[in-house]
């Protein structure tokens, strides 16, 4: 165990030594680059690649899982603390709402060689972000357990429930299913996935009026409750990291988890038998629907508006170097599903690729969606605890959302 770790450190050190010399100096003469990003392996690789191009520019980076809490205040300051923010479909919205990021059209034209058109996020005809990787939540299963009990790989959540019940009945595992149901953002995300799988719409067309208190909303909640009943009773405190630990200790046979976590799940750490039996498959559908009960996500970089043009230019050149880097994509092929040219999907990318094939919908990029997400995270808890009806829970979500949306001026 220690030896493999040592080996890893050595290899990464060697990689760093030779890696950096392999990067072309992108000839950036001045400016200062400061990046705010979430913290997972693929983003570290991406930022590290950008660093290889920094030339004589000043380079700083903050990797934090609390990035959402820092982003808006830090970019509101003038000059902004960060020159770039690595964002996703949901986290770009508050930046857009507050007008904190700049259009990238000129920079893409000048320095964007190698960036594919499909990587550009355009809003109202202006390029606002450059995406470099895709993510989604999909199913993971234990091949050995399913085989032993003669269960086919589930394709729908109904089959997930049936399979989990069978595993529980066999006495092999008490809580065979896991998903990140931690009250708050994670739980709301599960609702969003399941509701989209049911074909639901969050708002009345063209308005910010909520419309989740309907038959699809009730069906969504009932499915979440069934799955929660098959999960560890502490599910309301479990985030992605916690269920990963559950999986690695062999307590779980079916799990819905982010694709970006597959790398750490399938690495050499932990029980080799469990790792070998861990298999990935696409996201499940629900209630006879065609589209999966999952949302597609992209991660991309945006540039702060409140920062000098020189800094923006330097930052863009460094990040664009990474966002069109075939070598990085080849070296780190199993860290993420890269949207960059030259990416050859490996076995760890199955989830996202299946999701795209099944026409999964992207997470809704609406200005008021964050408020809905927040209201969901706290108001559906009591339904899962069996303290109120599904209708009441959905009514509460709508009411909580409306008060917040009124305060924010959306209604």
């Amino acid at each position, binding site marked *: 165990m220690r030896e493999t770790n040592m080996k890893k450190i050595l290899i990464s050190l060697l990689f760093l030594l030779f890696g950096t010399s392999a990067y072309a100096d992108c000839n950036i003469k001045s400016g200062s680059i400061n990046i705010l990003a979430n913290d997972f392996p693929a983003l570290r690789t991406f930022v590290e690649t950008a660093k290889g191009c920094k030339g004589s520019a000043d380079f700083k980076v903050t990797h934090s899982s609390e990035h959402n809490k820092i982003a808006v205040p830090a970019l509101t300051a003038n000059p902004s603390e960060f020159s770039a923010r690595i964002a996703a479909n949901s986290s770009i919205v508050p930046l857009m709402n507050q007008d904190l990021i700049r259009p990238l059209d000129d920079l893409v034209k000048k320095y964007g060689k190698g960036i594919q058109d499909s990587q550009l996020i355009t809003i*109202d005809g202006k390029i606002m972000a450059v995406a470099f990787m895709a993510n989604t939540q999909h199913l993971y299963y234990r091949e050995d357990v399913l085989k032993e009990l003669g269960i086919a790989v589930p394709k729908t959540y109904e089959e997930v429930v049936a399979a989990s019940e069978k595993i529980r009945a066999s006495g092999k595992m008490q809580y065979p299913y896991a998903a990140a149901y931690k009250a708050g953002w994670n739980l709301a995300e599960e609702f969003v996935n399941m509701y989209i799988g049911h074909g639901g719409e969050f708002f009345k067309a063209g308005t910010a009026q909520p419309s989740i208190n309907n038959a699809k909303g009730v069906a969504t909640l009932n499915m979440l409750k069934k799955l929660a009943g098959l999960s560890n009773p502490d599910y309301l405190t479990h985030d992605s990291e916690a269920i990963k630990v559950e999986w690695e200790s062999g307590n779980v046979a079916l799990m819905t988890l982010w694709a970006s976590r597959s790398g750490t799940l399938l690495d050499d750490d932990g029980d080799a038998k469990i790792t070998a039996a861990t298999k990935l498959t696409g996201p499940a559908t629900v209630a006879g629907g065609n589209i999966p009960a999952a949302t597609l996500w*992209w991660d991309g970089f945006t540039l702060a508006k409140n920062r000098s043009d020189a800094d923006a230019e330097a930052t863009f050149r460094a990040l664009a170097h990474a966002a069109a880097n075939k070598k990085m994509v080849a070296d780190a092929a199993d860290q993420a599903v890269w949207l960059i040219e030259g990416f050859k999907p490996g076995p760890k990318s199955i989830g996202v690729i299946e999701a795209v094939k099944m026409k999964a919908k992207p997470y809704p990029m609406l200005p008021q969606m964050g408020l809905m997400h927040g209201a969901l995270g706290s108001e559906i808890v009591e339904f899962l605890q069996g303290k109120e009806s599904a209708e009441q829970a959905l009514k509460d979500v709508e009411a909580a959302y409306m008060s917040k949306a009124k305060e924010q001026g959306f209604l």
Partner: protein
Amino acid sequence: MPNKTFFWFFLPTGLAMILFIGLPILSTGIQSFYAQHDQVVKEVKKCDPFGCTVSIVVDQEKTSKIREEKPLGKFNGFGTYVDRNHLAIEEIAKFWNETNSFGEFVDQVTNLPFYKALIFTLTYCLFVTPNVLLLGFIIALSLNAVTRRIRGPLIFGTILPMIVTPLVGSLVLFWMIDAEGIIGANLQMLMDDPYLSLKSSKTLTWITIIIYGIWHHSPFAFVVFYAALQTVPQEPVEAAIIDGASRWQRVRHIVLPHIYPVVTFVALISLMDNFRVFEPIIGFSAEGSAQSLSWLIYDNLVNEEVILFGSAAATSMMTIVGIAILLAPVLIRTWKEFRTAR
């Protein structure tokens, strides 16, 4: 100390308090009366790696013009205070008219976020404060009775819960009560119920947080009481012993009256602290089952991708009012004593 001397003595502290406490509270108060401007949105085409859709965005040109004219936002008066996520005046009136029984009405009201949080906060105060006083006093009395030689290490051990950072303390307990932790697993064995989970049940979560609160705050009460016990005069105690007073009678009639002002002080500080209960909720990941007023403020500021300054400010102001109401009886008595003393 004459009042005039006291005034000059207090002046620097007073100024700092105005600057760092008074003014921020004032600014929070002003903020709570404002809401965001009406958002001007427009339909645009959005394209990402997964395809193009027609969707809405905030119209920045128009919005920035409105923002420049009135940077504070739209005046909302007590609008935020009475909306559903706070005092919910309208909703309560509606429930009153629509519900058939009082129990149903109470159910509906306690389902509102503010009242839900208020009930937890008050329950926490109600159980933790008296228990902290009692436990702190008992520990102080017992430690005062042990021989001097081992008193030092004992005192250090006793105040440890207070030294441990609240978040760390609650995290340690959180892992211990996990279904696979030392307390959680043993409880399951003891109760012979493999589905028993301290974290999934609301009542058990509340009890856990309250026990944690007592554990964490008792050392403070103990330290103050222990110091006060050192000032109890020995003559009356010895006289009482000669008169044949029992240990309990001595405590009841000599020690307690002597340290009474200190008890009031500890009760006051404990009440204030407990009303702002926050860390254990985060440490225990108990957001699902227990929300306090402070947690509501935190939630408005960080848990949403959109920061709700108005909501957070309104809840802050109401927390201040809540503490003032709780402390009112004690403060009024102190004021009366001050007046009579003059």
